[in-house]
């Protein structure tokens, strides 16, 4: 079976959930080979978890340059592996950085690129990417006709399933950066996640909209989220009104989420909001306007005041957890 390269997304030795989704997807089309391009010492920390999601191989490309230059060290390593190993495909997470790595790799290797896939399949020996476009209104299947298929996969698009892999290590060199063409990283301030799961990785998301009314009152949303072990999201109107920080915006110009459960509180359900959440498995909405479009896509809707309904739900969830 041919190899499928999976670029590992990690922070400080902790593997992001999307990497496990990528390894799961890779098993559909070949044998997953995880590629760790990171600071020295990282592979030792991540190897075991990569093995538990079926990585047959782990390519270890460690260098201090990885944290010193933007994007290009990862492209350099993947390009050298594409040349040396002729993989069946390269899978990269469709994060801001992942899309850039994939795009540059496509140029460098003269390959076609499929963006924001929610799955990959193998049809007659060809790699086919499944994409949802226009906010999920169309399902599209596409393939690459030149070079090595490079596919970016949307976080949450594939359900991660464990499988044992050998995780055989192989050291790969990180080519020296060309300082003239490269972009230096002079400082980094990672987002401190807090205790809640990350929005695009969470299996439950509770979002608040303009109906929440103020930054203080967003507490109602947060309390329900914490009871459910969920991430907190917000509509653009809530973000623009200063109720909640922009990094939590869900929708066309915010994050795309696809959790098991999405709870919308005081959100009307504008098309741009729906674009970021309508592929959620189950949608629950609370809105005091019975005409709100969010009800058109909600599996369970309550017409009522969120300040009455949400706290009651929080309490019920708390009781069940005992």
């Amino acid at each position, binding site marked *: 079976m041919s190899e499928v390269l999976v670029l590992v997304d990690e*922070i400080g030795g902790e593997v992001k959930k999307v990497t496990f989704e990528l390894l799961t997807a890779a098993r559909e089309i070949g044998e997953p080979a995880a590629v760790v391009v990171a600071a020295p010492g990282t592979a030792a920390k991540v190897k075991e978890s990569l093995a538990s999601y079926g990585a047959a191989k782990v390519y270890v490309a460690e260098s201090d340059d990885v944290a010193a230059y*933007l994007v290009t060290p990862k492209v350099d390593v993947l390009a050298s592996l594409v040349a040396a190993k002729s993989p069946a495909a390269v899978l990269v997470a469709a*994060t*801001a950085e992942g*899309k*850039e*790595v994939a*795009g*540059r790799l*496509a*140029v460098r290797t003269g*390959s*076609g*690129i499929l*963006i924001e896939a929610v799955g990959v399949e193998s049809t007659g020996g060809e790699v086919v990417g499944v994409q*949802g*476009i*226009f906010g*999920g209104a*169309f*399902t*599209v*299947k*596409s393939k690459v*006709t030149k070079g090595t298929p490079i596919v970016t996969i949307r976080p949450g698009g594939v359900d991660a399933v464990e499988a044992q892999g050998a995780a055989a290590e192989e050291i790969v060199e990180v080519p020296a950066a060309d300082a003239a*063409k*490269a*972009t*230096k*990283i*002079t*400082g*980094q301030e990672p*987002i401190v996640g807090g205790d809640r799961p990350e929005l695009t990785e969470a299996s*439950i998301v509770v979002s608040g909209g303009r109906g929440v009314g103020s930054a203080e009152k967003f507490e109602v949303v947060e309390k329900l989220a914490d009871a459910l072990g969920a991430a907190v999201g917000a509509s653009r109107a809530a973000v623009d009104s200063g109720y909640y920080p*922009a*990094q939590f915006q869900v929708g*066309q*110009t915010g994050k*795309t989420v696809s959790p098991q459960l999405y709870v919308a509180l005081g959100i009307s359900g504008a*098309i741009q909001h729906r674009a970021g959440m309508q592929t959620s498995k*189950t949608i*629950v909405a609370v809105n005091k306007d*019975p005409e709100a479009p969010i*009800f*058109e*896509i909600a*599996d*369970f*809707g*309550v017409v*009522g005041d969120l300040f*009455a*309904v949400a706290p*009651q*739900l*929080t309490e*019920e*969830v708390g009781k*069940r957890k005992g």
Partner: protein
Amino acid sequence: MPNIVVLVKQVPDTYSERKLSDSDHTLDRESADAVLDEINERAVEEALLIKEAQGGEVTVLSVGPDRATEAIRKALSMGADKAIHVSDPALHGACLLQTTKVLAAAIGKVDSVDLVIAGNEATDGRGGTIPAMLAEVLGYPQLTHARKVTIDGGAITVERETDAGLTHLQANLPAVISVGEKINEPRYPSFKGIMAAKKKPVDTLTVADLGIDASEVGLASASSAVLEATPKPPRAAGQRVEDAGDGGSKIAAYLVGEKLI
């Protein structure tokens, strides 16, 4: 005095319905209203702010069908100096690689470019890859997802903001940057600006003018191909209840039934 090229793209207005054409699965551009992409307005604004502070010239570049002239006019009426519009039926169905190649060739037509400014992601495709791909083709450093840009002589520094947090970047010009939603508030074109825009030069080019053979671009030679496209059945509305003091409990009961809690 930086010479700046701003990349602008006409996108279907998300308030109107977007469709794929039945014949070849490309975007049915006629079925939707088209507007200058919101983030691109910020790219134009950033170019104008740099020009106002440091001089130089701002060239708008768009690769797209005839209708893209509306987006170009808007950028010119905001204050850009001139424009290049690459419009060619051969480009129908172009893939990301081909679009990047055409953009790079058109940038090559502008004298001594110091800075290329794009939006970080267009609202139609959610790609967010073109600026990085362009940097790769041009061999320029990429400073993308900027929320702040500072140019000092031949050096450029950018505050990059993504999901992962803030990253401080530094490189030498010429460079490609992309700007995010939060970088600035785009100006409205003034009446004077709108009148002046009508007289500004727009160079309309075909791919042949860029030294690219028509057979190298477009659907037939694209590096990816759509095999099938199926409209998803719209999500059906489920149950809906009026809150009679027990709305929260009813949701809880529903979630238990669905094994979600």
